[in-house]
């Protein structure tokens, strides 16, 4: 098991990244201009009230002390208290997570079901000429339409004209799963457009890269059918970049559907984070951004392990000077 030899180093690297990220987040949040006291107490509050507030949230301690307290309690699952709502941050996140999760599941499901087959189709039929130009153009348009443009247009069309689906009045999947899907499908599709297009492009490139390898030529010479060659020889070898991309997209969707949630008025984690930033809600910003980065780091760790299992050469290579 070469994988086991390589894993500890990779885990250590992830840990280093997480520590660095947490310091970056903490420093950024503490250097935000405009104090929390102005936001909560108003700018005319007395110095005594400000001091009491600072003590209540542990903001009178030294900066390194505050950082250590935050990290240690976060490790125990305690992310502090929201200054705005006075509720534990964990509860605030828990009530919003199902919405963000629902959007992410819809977008990723569409990406895997449409993006990968589309990429394989264009990759195996790309012999130049008009169809390849058309394919390039379509997938390029998909990655070129910004979320905020598409989201605004969709909101306009569906709120102006009766098109069957309504915008707004989002139902959380946690309260009623069946009723939530029609309300989440539009923002989910908007999120999916970019993901589908980029996955199709990556899949096409990966498939093209494998198709020219000698072992595919050998399979053709053995008289294997095209479908069999694509499933067994091409897709398996093309799977690593596709897997990496889908994992990256998933991590970003879970932490950062900020624009789509804001435009569609979905009270999920992304729009909450933007609001918290406007209100200088330290505990919420810190923990929200930290969670998003933790999801990303864990995801890329998982991908590396899976990659090592799919293609053992990768884990061997990573042990060398490159680690």
């Amino acid at each position: 098991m070469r994988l086991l030899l390589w894993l500890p180093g990779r885990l250590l690297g992830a840990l280093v990244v997480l520590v660095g990220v947490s310091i970056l987040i903490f420093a950024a949040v503490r250097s935000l201009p405009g104090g929390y006291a102005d936001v909560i107490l108003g700018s005319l509050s007395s110095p005594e009230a400000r001091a009491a507030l600072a003590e209540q949230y542990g903001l009178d301690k030294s900066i390194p002390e505050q950082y250590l307290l935050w990290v240690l309690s976060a490790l125990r699952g305690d992310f502090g208290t929201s200054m705005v709502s006075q509720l534990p941050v964990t509860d605030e996140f828990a009530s919003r997570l199902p919405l963000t999760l629902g959007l992410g599941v819809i977008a990723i499901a569409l990406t895997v079901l449409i993006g990968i087959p589309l990429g394989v189709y264009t990759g195996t039929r790309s012999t130049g000429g008009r169809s390849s130009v058309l394919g390039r153009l379509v997938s390029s348009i998909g990655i070129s339409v910004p979320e905020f443009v598409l989201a605004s247009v969709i909101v306009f069309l569906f709120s102006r004209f009766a098109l069957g689906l309504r915008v707004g009045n989002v139902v959380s999947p946690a309260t009623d799963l069946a009723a939530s899907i029609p309300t989440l499908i539009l923002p989910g599709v908007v999120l999916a457009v970019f993901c589908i297009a980029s996955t199709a492009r990556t899949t096409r490139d990966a498939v093209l890269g494998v198709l020219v390898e000698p072992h595919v030529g050998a399979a053709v010479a053995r008289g294997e059918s095209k479908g069999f060659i694509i499933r067994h020889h091409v897709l398996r070898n093309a799977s690593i970049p596709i897997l990496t991309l889908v994992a990256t997209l998933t991590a970003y969707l879970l932490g950062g559907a900020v624009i789509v949630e804001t435009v569609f008025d979905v009270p999920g984690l992304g729009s909450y984070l933007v609001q918290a930033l406007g209100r200088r809600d330290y505990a919420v910003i810190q923990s929200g951004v930290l969670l998003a980065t933790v999801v990303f780091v864990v995801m890329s760790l998982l991908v590396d392990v899976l990659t090592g299992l799919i293609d053992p050469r990768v884990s061997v290579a990573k042990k060398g000077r490159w680690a």
Partner: protein
Amino acid sequence: MTGTVAPIPRATAAQAARRGLRRAATTLDPLATVAACVLLAMFAATILARLVGLGGSPTEIVGTRLAAPSLAFPLGTDSLGRSLVPRLLEGIGTTLLLSVIAVAITAVLASTAGIVAGYRGGRVNGTIMRVGDMLYAFPSIILAILVAAVVGPGQVAALASIVLVTVPLMTRLVAVSSRAVADRDFVAAAVISGVSTPRILVRHILRNVAGTIAVQGTYALSIAILVEGGLSFLGYGVQLPGSSLGLLIKEGTTYMVKAPWLIVAPGVVLVIAILCINVIGDSLRDRLEPRETRSLV
């Protein structure tokens, strides 16, 4: 063996650069040539607007509020009665200029870090990669908003966010390319003949990874426009009374029901600009990082 050897004539730097430009211009395929022309037209229009006032003044109130497109105002007027044409031209300029400057900074930072990381390997590479990983772990729009909140909303915030969002990926890809070049024999030959390290980095490594830098720089430009747009759309980027494509689209959404033309024009221009850049990027990649494309299947 002491006979003199005639020096091999070497192309001057200027000649090489001219040759590179000519090659780049002639190797773009037809689709990418169209894309490049569209982008050049956008640049020309925004420069003309700034120099000779093409389209009129972007701040002057000239008509009724939210007037529909007409002969006098080809794209209609906004909520204050300003003509949209000059606002759009100014917005294109701001967006493109911000993105180009930001990507130039990214290219310098990422090329330097990537080439050093790829050439030295080992601990230097590990350190640079870990720092890149830290930035890469942030979802891009969250990183952008966080930067904008710390620096204060505005053009500097947009610039800084674009650089921080685009640097990690480019550094990593340049490092991978540099690594591959550093292992080749001509680099070993240069080391053995006593060429100084800076000279090796510039003359041997940089030249051979220039293709990667050009391709990734093009893609970074499209990401830059996306980030600027998203940031201005959320209110953290370019501020009024300035103008940028993201800001115009944000304004457009406010009056979308009454005046849909306000979002259509900047939206279409933004999509076309990003599309053109991506098409050029694809074309550059096909030419500069060629792959075997003949297959039996």
